[in-house]
């Protein structure tokens, strides 16, 4: 079962009040659910659908359209590795492969200790400092293998 935490429950009316049409609150509520659980569970989509009078199917279609909503349980740290043009030209492919082998998982997977989840991502608008990855809400730019080692090792 999914339930919004009491604190999040309280925020729902505030979020709804921002929009003339309740349907518009779909993205904020999905985000809130993901922040709470680390991913958007099927039950969460049903629950959000109930709040916004949308079918679970519709909620899922919106959630699955965006790569930044995770539909499966994730690790504590979600690495979104940019593989778009600027990053790619600066060696993103190799660095992504490096990260995956370092974590001993494939892209899209989560480490056995549930610490890291690794995903490809399209341009995250930090091209000037390509290549880059985003871990949870933090951008890490001008990456190199050494830098990746340091960053990953520093996280607990």
């Amino acid at each position, binding site marked *: 079962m999914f339930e919004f935490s009491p604190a999040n429950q309280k925020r729902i009316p505030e979020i709804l009040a921002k929009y003339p049409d309740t349907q518009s609150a779909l993205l904020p509520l999905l985000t809130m659910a993901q922040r709470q659980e680390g991913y958007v569970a*099927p039950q969460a989509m049903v629950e959000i659908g109930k709040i916004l009078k949308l079918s*679970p*199917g*519709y909620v*899922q*279609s919106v959630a699955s*359209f965006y790569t930044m909503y995770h539909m499966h349980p994730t690790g504590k740290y979600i690495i979104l590795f940019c593989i778009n043009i600027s990053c790619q030209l600066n060696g993103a492919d190799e660095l992504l492969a490096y990260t995956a082998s370092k974590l001993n998982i494939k892209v899209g997977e989560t480490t056995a200790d549930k610490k890291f989840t690794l995903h490809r991502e399209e341009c995250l608008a930090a091209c000037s400092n390509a290549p880059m990855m985003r871990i949870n809400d933090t951008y890490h730019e001008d990456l190199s293998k050494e830098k990746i080692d340091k960053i990953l090792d520093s996280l607990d």
Partner: protein
Amino acid sequence: MSVTVRETINFTIDGKPATAPEGTIILEVAQKYGFEVTNLCYNKKLKPFAACRTCMVEVRHNGKKELVYSCTHPVAEGMEVIIHTEETDRYNSANIEMLLVEHPLDCPICDKSGVCPLQDNTELLELQKPRFEIQRRNEPSIKTNPLIEFYLNRCIVCGLCVRACDEIQGVQALDFHQRGMKASIGTANDEPLDCEFCGQCITVCPTGALMDMSSDARGLAALFKNTNTTCSYCSWGCTVQLETKKNKLVRITADETPGVGINEGNLCAKGRFGHGIVHNDERIQSPLINQGGTFQEIGWDEAIEMIAERAKTTINRNGAESLAGLASEKLTNEENYLFQKLFRNNYGSNQINNLQNLQAPYVNDFMLNCFENGIESKPVTELDQADVVLIFNSDLPSEYPVGGNSIRKGAIFTGTRVIFANPRNMRFDHESRIDIRLIYNQDADFMLANRLCRILIDENLVDTAKVQEQIPNFNDLVASLAPYTADATKKATGLTNEQLKRTATQLAEKADRALIIGNDVLNTGKGKETLNALLNLAILLNAGGEGSVSIYPPREHCNSQGVNDMGATPQYLPGYRPVNDAFEHENLADELFENCANGKIKFLHIAGEDPMTSYKSRSIVEQALDTVPFLVVQDIYMSETARKANLILPTATFAEKEGTVTNMTRHVQKVVPAIPVQGKAKSDLEIFHNLADALGSPFKSKSSSDVLEEIRQTIPAYKDVDPARHEQWKPSGVTAKPAFQICAFEELKASKRDFSMKLLTNNHMFHIGSYTHFSKALTDIGPDCFAEINPKDAKKSELVNGDTLLVESSQANLKVQMKINPAVPAGMVYIPKNWPEVPVNALRNGEDGTVHVKISKSE
């Protein structure tokens, strides 16, 4: 038609002048003018979407050339549209070529083959050699629900199914998953599809990605023979396309071609998947005679002879008035016409009736009153252009599902405002700008309708001076409305005066209004009063407001209207001519079953009805059938009624017969045979002809069309209707007699203390009458009967989902599985009436109106 006037736009298509109302999109007009435009994701019933990008045309406007997508671009004054240019073909082709990269091209085994827009468009653009590397998807077919197969390798992600499910059906069971190359369609969480099973998604899909699994023969639609005929279930009267192969009905589809039917290619679960009643071993195989409780096969000649003999001796011994007939809401007009003729002309008996007229004789009077007051029923094909629709006590998605489709379309394209009034808070999702929901107390229908009338007058929402001028008894109406105060109405309906004022205001605005009345109204015990109040409401709006009012009266089965038109009632001869003194004998048919039970009727002939399950009260039917000395029943299946007969005759299904039926809005439509009569069965028409022959006074008519010709001679209103064009019959020769129908006020009866719950029963979404149980597809999706109660009542009686409920009335009790449904109000038990093992009508004692019951958990 809507009262909003849209400006007419002038433009040209490929040089030919064309016109259309402002806002019309190019593709729609081009198709109307007969131009072929490639397109894969467009459907006239749905909102513009532009997913496939294959409908590009060139437009020149204000000296500028533009390439636009014709499925979303509206026409403009002076615009020149050019459909094919080298450039548009290049773009459109490229997009189809890219779709074909993934498409399996397994046409020889595809259900859509031959009627496939993807094939057609590929051909139209003369695409032959693929330029791109083929990359087929190879996902397994999904068959997790009983009826619709998802073979998504063929899906081109046009979104038509998703949009039809949402916009037309209001369900949102399907949606997109992911995006880009990975985009596909599916259900939430890939759970098995659990929806209304209307199959609209199958119809609109331009490929064979969604398929009807209920069909026996799969693949190559082009090889089947198609017959368009009228659905035999509800009174909406959809045109269904029967697909046959070697004289076998293999599936039912919908034809979206404009002008084919009143339903624009929409169907419901029953109409589309309910074909299992046709080829079925459980059909009665031969005439049967009851010999001491067991049925023995006999020959047709012998059976017909026996009825004729019995009729003659009964007439000699007890007089013609002791012979009675029950005509059918499911037989054709021609059959019902001959049946009443058999009784009136051959036997000399006026004892003929039908179940609707027996239970609610006032519906016919209501219709005639509408005529006399100039209240029309516009063709249902115009329902999507109404400005306001009041859905009065109808659970539309179960009762007239396709009616719901038209209203939803209206909400999108006309901006139809929907007012939904019902004791149950039933789902009716749509995109109306205004959705007034009036959830009122059960049985308070007449209070609600009368209060609306009073508000219209009190608040001067209609021009009362004008009304007074036109309708002589206006003051009587005003006087009769005195008891419907805000307080009394609140007490009876539970609705606030503000809610009702808002409703009345909405109704009073200049508009074309449609008023759809559900069959539940007839079971409140105040059906007549409610219909009269609604008629008064319509008269007030018509006489004192601007715009128009259309009324759609409650009719249940495919020919509930026609059986009455044909005069299968003791009050009216064909065409509603009063019987008056044509017959001297007492009218026994008004109380048909009572008069069988008390011995006055000695001979009862039931054609295609099962009153044991479908008459409101079972006990009286049982007594009647057990008492009447001679009972002949002709039907397709061995119904409970048939089991009580002396003689049973097997009849043909709708797929095997010819004739016409008349829907709730009086569209007279064709029934066309798609396969020969099965086995030893005969059509009801043939049986009546045979009987007349055996009686020694044969009918002049030989065929169904002869009978239709005779009907046209007899009923002026039928004279000029063309069933092939789905035309309505219009009242002819009606003298205008404007008058409000005044009813005395009577307070709602309170529930009795020991039986504190009220029963409601009607057709299930997947079932109607008693035939649908023989259709496997429908029992697959609607296998079990569930009583529904409110969570509060469940809590009170400590009931949970899946418990067996004991429902008791003062008359009888029954056991039924239950589920909790918050849409059902506290104090109500809703039980669908379509399960023979849950005989809801057994609960009624002699009283009319709502049945009071109590519930408890059955151990």
